[in-house]
């Protein structure tokens, strides 16, 4: 039904996330933009605040570290490729660890699956020995397009309220 080259939907989604992580780690941003996301993508990183346990959620529904669509992501990717993008020149070295991939919903009718995964980004600049770490759960919706998965919705749920890296000039 899914036309996938894998033992399970989960495994095929996992492969997709690994491919994506490779592109981002290698800073193939234009290719990421061209091949990984759909043109109706919704991409967001909501701001988290520490709240009492009784609160329903710690995540804001109106404030974000990134709130993007295809066009604004294109701007970011193009800017990062610019020779005057100081925050990434020399570039930070980022390694994404993607794990705990689980399928939370399958919707063959519109060729979409919902997945969750854990993400750890290990980030080093220059001669740093202490990495900046970013830890998050990602909630993604993937869509089957021409026999491949594409990312059509992503919410990055950070574990951080105060972000311990000086600038988010990378894609999570």
């Amino acid at each position, binding site marked *: 039904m899914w036309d996938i080259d894998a033992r399970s939907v989960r495994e095929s989604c996992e492969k997709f996330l690994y491919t994506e992580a490779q592109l981002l780690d290698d800073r193939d941003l234009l290719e990421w933009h061209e091949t990984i996301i759909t043109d109706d993508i919704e991409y967001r*990183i909501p*701001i988290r*605040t*520490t*709240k*009492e346990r009784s*609160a329903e959620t710690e995540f*804001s529904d*109106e*404030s*974000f*570290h*990134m*709130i*993007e*669509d295809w*066009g*604004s992501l*294109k*701007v*970011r990717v*193009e*800017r*990062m490729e*610019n*020779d*005057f*993008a*100081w*925050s*990434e*020149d020399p570039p930070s070295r980022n390694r994404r660890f993607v794990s705990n991939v689980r399928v939370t919903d399958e919707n063959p009718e519109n060729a979409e699956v919902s997945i969750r995964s854990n993400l750890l980004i290990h980030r080093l600049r220059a001669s740093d020995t202490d990495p900046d770490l970013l830890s998050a759960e990602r909630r993604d919706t993937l869509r089957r397009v021409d026999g491949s998965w594409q990312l059509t919705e992503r919410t990055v749920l950070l574990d951080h*309220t*105060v*972000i*311990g*890296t*000086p*600038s*988010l*000039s990378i894609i999570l």
Partner: protein
Amino acid sequence: MAQNRSGGTGGSRSSIDSKLERMADALEEGEALLEILHDDEVFERELEEIFAKSWVYIGHESEIPEEGDYRQRSIGKDPFIFVRDENGEVQVLWDSCRHRGTKLCRAEKGNTTHFRCPYHGWTYRNTGELVGVPQKGNGFPDLDMEEKGLHGAPNVESYNGLVFASLDPDAPDLETYLGPSAWYLDLYFKLADMEVIGDPHRWEIDTDWKTPSENFYGDNYHVPMGHKSAIDVGIGSATAKGEKESELYAISDVGGHAFSIYQIPGEDFFWGHPPEVTETFHPERLTDEQYQIARQSGVSLGTIFPNLSFIYLGGSDDPEKDTVGTFCLRQWQPIEPGKMEAWNWIMAPKDAPQEYKDRVYEVGVGTFSLSGNFEVDDIGIWDGIPEAADSVFAEQVNATTVFSMGRGEDTLAEVDDSWPGPGTVYREGGMTDENQLEFYRKWHQTISEAH
């Protein structure tokens, strides 16, 4: 770090007093001392003499609209609770239980009628009043409850929704502190009622808090180089992209604070707001002179000493989409020498349509935030300063930073006597450092005052 406080030479670090003296000499020459951007003693003195004496920004009233709403805030590094009490009054309470000192407020925000201490259960109303002491009769029959309410900041005042506090009991009132700056703040906070959208961005940056404060005083010289990548992709303001003819004015001598304003002659520009937004404005709250400046305003920015900055710009996060007027309010919080935490609140005119406010938010994120296409490059540059400032060699060569742009024969910037507002105002404001010198003069004066 072991420091030689004797003020000696020969490679050992000199005392703060010697640094302040050398800073005074540097200022005479239109320069500042690099060492102060990463120094333990300077940092301690700043907490005591600047953050504990100035009027420091706490938050906007729109962040705590309902009775009982609270937010954690800080003055320098001291923890405070910004709360709207049961009478609707705004309080700024020191977050420390009067019993054994622990912090009462463990959430960044919430709503409560009382703060109850988790240690022994002392309970305070959101006015700060102590109303509950378990076993009081059996244990503390003589405890004066009225005496033991939470300590509040000695001075709390609001200016058009912006709440400031001063820990100095002898502080002048806020109006005096802001002085002629209020004439300019009115353009941003009085012409329209502004509100904060959601929660602030918070992130740590390895640079001293003074660097961005000074930058927002008016370092317009860095824009073509520092922000070239963002301008190249087409998301800058109409003035930065050269689509609109404009004149940049640098405004200082307004109580130790400073502003920069681009003016687009003859246009109803209003920082890029469209007519459906500007018609919700209140021109009657401004003088005619103020209104004319507001009307022709492109990008505007500034800093209220010590660490509250803002930038107001018409821009977009995507050249394919309409430009909107986005407002980012900033606080540069000291964390340790050479390190700070940035707080960024995105604001919009309260009476603008919701869809428009959503776009204001998105554009704020895409330009000036932790991920902002402009901001990230500032930070990538600023974080190179503290390492150099901490150098032993910095003292040996008496390393200074240069703020003499605009001085001397035939420089471009010139005082504009026809400007209708207060202060000393330069045309070609991107070609003078007088604003940034104002920051360092105010810094030097404030930190030296008690000594």
